[in-house]
């Protein structure tokens, strides 16, 4: 535009008219200034990429740790709940020693008890009216072989009667369970879990292996049936098992060790009544009267023992993780505060310019708060994804389904944003109350 022309046409930038759009009401001012604040904050983060990345680390670690642990534990919880509910709260056991022994003294005490025998199991089956299914099981770890294939650490489970399969919650996929006559005959027959097929028969289909012979602990056993796979828990397969009749088990491994009696009731409501009856029967058989202080001479347990132990272990893990996360968020927050103070110092002159142009305290405050929150929220975001990634990796290793919880994701970003507000507040306030004259003078 020609300058002379402008002079002739009239005043180009007269000091008078203010545009009607210019609002004295706060809301428009806030929106325009807020956009500017966000724009400047993000531009500043982009301009200092390395610094931003370093600032993020504390927040990322804290959030990722919590997200990973919470996600993994939720996955495990779900897995444990579905696994134990198949058998779960309708089954209890009578054994010489409880499954979890907490002290050496207890171990000695339990060992002095009389063995739980087949006769005990028969007495329970005969006398307990509330009991639905009663079975006996004993376990031994052996090596199974077929041809040149070898499968170590197979759980050989001697059971009787056949209802023990129902109590264990396993079903036949192919073939059959032994008959009563076969069961008492002591013949070397077996029903195998699906891992046996994978390891000894190269993953052959279930019906192809019926009638085949495998060696267990050096003794040949004929396969009568194959079980439906159950899957694994905590990385341990539940399918690396071979069921044999208890008589066969006794012949091979003797009767020297105590057995475990399994009792199942139709519904969880009847559990207590059945437990009371079984307790009375067992006390009678051990020649004991009711006395809380005296050792009853046997252990009566439900699956709740495992669930309690599991619950305690995971809640401890949760607390520890929350503690670690809190510390790393605290450290992350201090780092953010430090960086924000540096940022305010570096940009003192910019703050002066903005104030001279009419930025109010709260405009400057908002600008730096947004910058702090943008850093920590970004950290939280990355942390959430890292956490889910970790959980995914670990779940793939252990083998349980992953439950992605959107609330924990929102919580991760939310908490880290809060850290941003808290740690950004003081630096932002320092920026906001800078004297414009001093600020403009700074280099």
């Amino acid at each position, binding site marked *: 535009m020609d300058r002379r022309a402008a002079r002739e046409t009239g005043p180009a930038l*007269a000091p008078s008219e203010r545009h009607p*759009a210019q609002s004295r009401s706060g809301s428009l001012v806030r929106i325009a200034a807020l956009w500017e604040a966000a724009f400047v904050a993000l531009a500043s983060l982009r301009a200092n990429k390395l610094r931003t990345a370093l600032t993020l680390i504390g927040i990322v670690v804290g959030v990722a740790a919590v997200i990973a642990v919470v996600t993994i534990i939720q996955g495990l919880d779900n897995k444990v709940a579905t696994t134990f509910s198949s058998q779960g709260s309708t089954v209890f056991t009578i054994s010489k020693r409880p499954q979890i022994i907490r002290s050496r003294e207890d171990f000695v005490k339990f060992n002095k008890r009389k063995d739980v025998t087949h006769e005990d199991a028969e007495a329970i089956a005969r006398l307990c009216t509330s009991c639905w299914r009663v079975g006996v099981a004993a376990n031994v770890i052996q090596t199974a072989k077929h041809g040149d294939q070898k499968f170590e650490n197979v759980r050989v489970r001697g059971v009787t009667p056949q209802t023990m399969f129902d109590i264990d919650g396993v079903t036949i996929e192919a073939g059959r369970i032994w008959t009563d006559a076969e069961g008492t005959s002591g013949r070397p027959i077996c029903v195998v879990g699906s891992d046996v097929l994978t390891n000894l028969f190269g993953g052959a289909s279930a019906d192809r292996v019926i009638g085949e012979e495998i060696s267990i602990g050096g003794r040949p056993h004929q396969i009568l049936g194959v079980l439906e796979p159950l899957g694994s828990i905590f990385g341990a397969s539940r399918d690396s098992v071979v069921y044999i009749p208890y008589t066969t088990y006794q012949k091979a491994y003797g009767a020297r060790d105590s057995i475990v009696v399994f009792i199942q009731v139709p519904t969880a409501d009847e559990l207590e009544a059945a437990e009371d009856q079984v307790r009375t029967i067992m006390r009678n058989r051990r020649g004991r009267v009711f006395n809380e202080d005296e050792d009853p001479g046997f252990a009566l347990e439900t699956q709740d023992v495992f669930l309690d132990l599991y619950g305690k272990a995971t809640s401890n893990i949760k607390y520890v993780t929350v503690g670690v996360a809190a510390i790393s968020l605290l450290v992350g927050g201090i780092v953010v505060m430090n960086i924000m103070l540096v940022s305010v110092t570096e940009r003192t002159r910019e703050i002066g310019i903005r104030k001279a142009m009419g930025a109010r305290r709260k405009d400057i405050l908002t600008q730096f708060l947004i910058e702090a929150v943008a850093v920590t929220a970004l950290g939280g975001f990355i942390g959430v994804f890292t956490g889910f990634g970790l959980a995914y990796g670990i779940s793939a290793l252990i083998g349980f389904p992953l439950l992605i919880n959107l609330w924990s994701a929102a919580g991760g970003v939310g908490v880290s944003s809060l850290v941003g507000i808290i740690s950004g507040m003081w630096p932002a306030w320092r920026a906001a109350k800078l004297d414009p004259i001093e600020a403009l003078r700074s280099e």
Partner: protein
Amino acid sequence: MSDVTLASLSAEGIQARAANGHGGPDTTSLIAMRDIWKTYEMGSEKVHALHGVSFEVRKGEYIAITGPSGSGKSTLMNLIGCLDTPSNGEYWLNGKNVSLMDDDELARIRNQEVGFVFQTFNLLARATALHNVELPLIYGGIGSAKRHQMAREALAAVDLADRVTHRPNELSGGQRQRVAIARALVNHPSILLADEPTGALDTHTSGEIMDLFERLHEEGNTVVLVTHEPDIAARAHRIISIRDGQIEKDQVIR
């Protein structure tokens, strides 16, 4: 494109606003300073940067405030620009008593009434020319479409229509100062307050910038120039000389 605004922004606007004064002491005065004192406490000692300064500036005047360094002219400039408030005395700007305002009210006045031009330009280094010019509009709460339009017009008025997307480091000193002037003018302030606007420029560019100020004055703007250079001050129509915190001379030269 700026011709549209050229026609719409006329001298009548100035008169209308002057008549609408908010009860200031003199409706024709844009700036009225009454016995202004500025005192700093340096430890136990009190230093009077200004003592008893009084003067008035009418709309459309072109004045220069001069004085040696340490005379108090910077303090006076900060007061005129509402960056600071006096320790004593009254300062009326465009009918408003600025001497009683708090920080946020002063920010509002700076945004609406004052257009700053600094010796070192004070542009935001990372922002484009357009964004720099938009800055007062942002804090004035103007929507983005209107803001772009107003900022483009202001840049066109200082002959920088083809430099809107340039950043300060892509512009010459003279161009940077013109961006700063566009920024000062974009909000149509009551006064254009320039602090040594040619101090960082060579003689030729200085001349161009002074021509621009003269043109802006002719277009109806009130220009207050703070300088220690006599030949720059001589371009103004009235010179106020400050020495030892007081007005030494106040003369209309044309």
